[in-house]
């Protein structure tokens, strides 16, 4: 089902099942990855990659791939994923070249990608003006719709096809992370000695960043570019407030992510708030709660 068909279908009973399934799966992914993101201090890389994805959307538009049809949406997603992975690896390479200055590398990639995105948006708009007039206006509206979706997310757009793609990618990333957990934990705990212990730190960094880039793109499906990094940070940060045991931290993080997504969606649907921001707000509230629990626990000791 494409967007138009979804909008034309019975609005009073929108198909929320795929939305819920997609959101919960992506929340679980965020819960698992966020522990590494927080402990390895990669929150800003997530931010960089999500904004860099904007450049990917620009490329998709110039290539004439629009998100209005299902095939278009898949094509656009593929281009955004490819571009985000490149951005993550670019940040990693620039960090190495600039002697470990990750913030500089992110600054460069984030701004370059966003600038590229905006330039390409303009170029693709300009291209349409030479077409027949009616088509250009339609495409123009399409672009604005896409920009809005990319920046702020539109999870209500999720049909079973989109949900299936999100769930599939999330499960793949989760499986690879599970498979590589020992290596990732060692790398994140003590990167400087990794190589001496037979773990290639460069390769491990790059593999994790690819997984992070994929997760960011999945998170964008819920929250859009602006808030994507949040659901890859908040659950882990909250879990670390309340536990000192690694396995528990992962458990709590996933739990907090899922509860946050569930309550967020409930509030969003009930009060007709935008779903993505509602989820981020709920997870933020849970973070504050765990922070207070942390303070209370340390006072009791």
């Amino acid at each position, binding site marked *: 089902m494409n967007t138009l068909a979804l909008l034309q279908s019975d609005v009073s009973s929108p198909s929320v099942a795929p939305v819920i399934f997609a959101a919960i799966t992506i929340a679980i992914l965020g819960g698992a990855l966020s522990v590494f993101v927080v402990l390895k201090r990669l929150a800003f890389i997530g931010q960089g990659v999500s904004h860099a994805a904007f450049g990917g959307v620009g490329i998709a538009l110039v290539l004439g791939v629009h998100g209005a049809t299902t095939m278009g949406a898949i094509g656009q997603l593929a281009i955004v994923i490819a571009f985000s992975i490149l951005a993550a690896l670019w940040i990693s390479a620039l960090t190495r070249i600039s002697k470990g200055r990750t913030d500089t590398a992110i600054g460069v990639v984030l701004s370059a990608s966003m600038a590229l995105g905006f330039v390409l948006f303009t170029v693709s708009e300009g291209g349409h003006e030479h077409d027949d007039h009616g088509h250009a206006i339609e495409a123009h509206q399409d672009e604005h719709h896409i920009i809005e979706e990319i920046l702020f997310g539109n999870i209500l757009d999720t049909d079973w096809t989109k949900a299936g793609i999100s769930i599939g990618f999330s499960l793949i990333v989760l499986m690879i992370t599970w*498979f590589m957990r020992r*290596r990732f*934990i060692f790398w994140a*705990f*003590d*990167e400087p000695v990794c190589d*001496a*212990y037979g*773990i290639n730190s460069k390769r491990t960094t790059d593999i994790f960043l690819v997984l992070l880039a994929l997760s960011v793109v999945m998170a964008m499906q819920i929250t859009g570019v602006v808030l994507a990094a949040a659901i890859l940070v908040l659950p882990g940060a909250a879990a*670390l407030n309340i536990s000192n045991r690694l396995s528990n931290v992962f458990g709590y993080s996933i739990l907090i992510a899922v509860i946050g997504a569930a309550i967020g969606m409930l509030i969003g649907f009930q009060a007709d708030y935008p779903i993505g921001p509602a989820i981020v707000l709920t997870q933020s509230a849970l973070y504050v709660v765990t922070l207070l629990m942390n303070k209370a626990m340390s006072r009791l000791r």
Partner: protein
Amino acid sequence: MNSDQHPAVEIDHVSYTYPASGLDAQPVSALQDISFKVDEKTKLGVLGPNGGGKSTLIKLILGIIVPNQGKVKVFGLSPTKARAQGLVGYLPQRIESDLDWPISVEQVVAFGRISKLKPWQRLGKNDLQSIQHAMELVDVLDLANRHIGSLSGGQLQRVMIARAIAGNPKLLVLDEPTVGVDIAGQQRFGKMIETLQSELGLTVIVVTHDMRAIAAMADRIACLSRSLHFHDAPQGLTPGVLAQVFAHDVAGVFGDIHIDAHRADECEDPSHTIRSGCGCDEHDCSDQGENK
């Protein structure tokens, strides 16, 4: 493969130069034509000033960098292979681990087994036994369940040694293990290394700039200041040799020792690398920043 036929470490005419790191930088020569062997089950101390190439030597033995010239063999294998087989344990100079990690002492020691495990394997009985034994040997068994961030500096170092030996290596490389440790602590550390060596049949390489510490830890000594100056039992280590290795840093300690600036040229001559005790001037020896 029978590694007994090979020395633990064989360094054969090895040179290493760090490439220039910018338009306005020069390449830095860290090691020049070094050759020596470390026999199995010996304890070699590598002594030298800051910037003398000690860290470079460690990176070469661990296979993190590859020499520009010459060959490094660890138990007859390439360093990368030896490392992949878990033959080498390593204690870094600075513990840069993230101590905020929600992780226990035992979990940290378990990382020592990482090269022995396939990704899908869980820790088996053998692994758990090695981890226990490693913690026992360095006396941290009672800390097993403690959070890694709750340890004292000394305890943390012992945990990191336990991590280094948990993989049952045959070679243990220690980088400046006694920085900031008092003399009694150095003696205790030396005893612990001796215990590890006899219990596990280890070959030990200790790298340090601390002349007092090295006597407690090593039975053979190599002095390194870009080239190799001396390689023998500690008894042969005379103030004169030390003075030459450390340039004028040591002069104050051992009296007024004059160092010929022109003898720096001899450092370039491979025939002088062993037992020649060639002197270097200060510029040559002490300012070759140990590149990261």
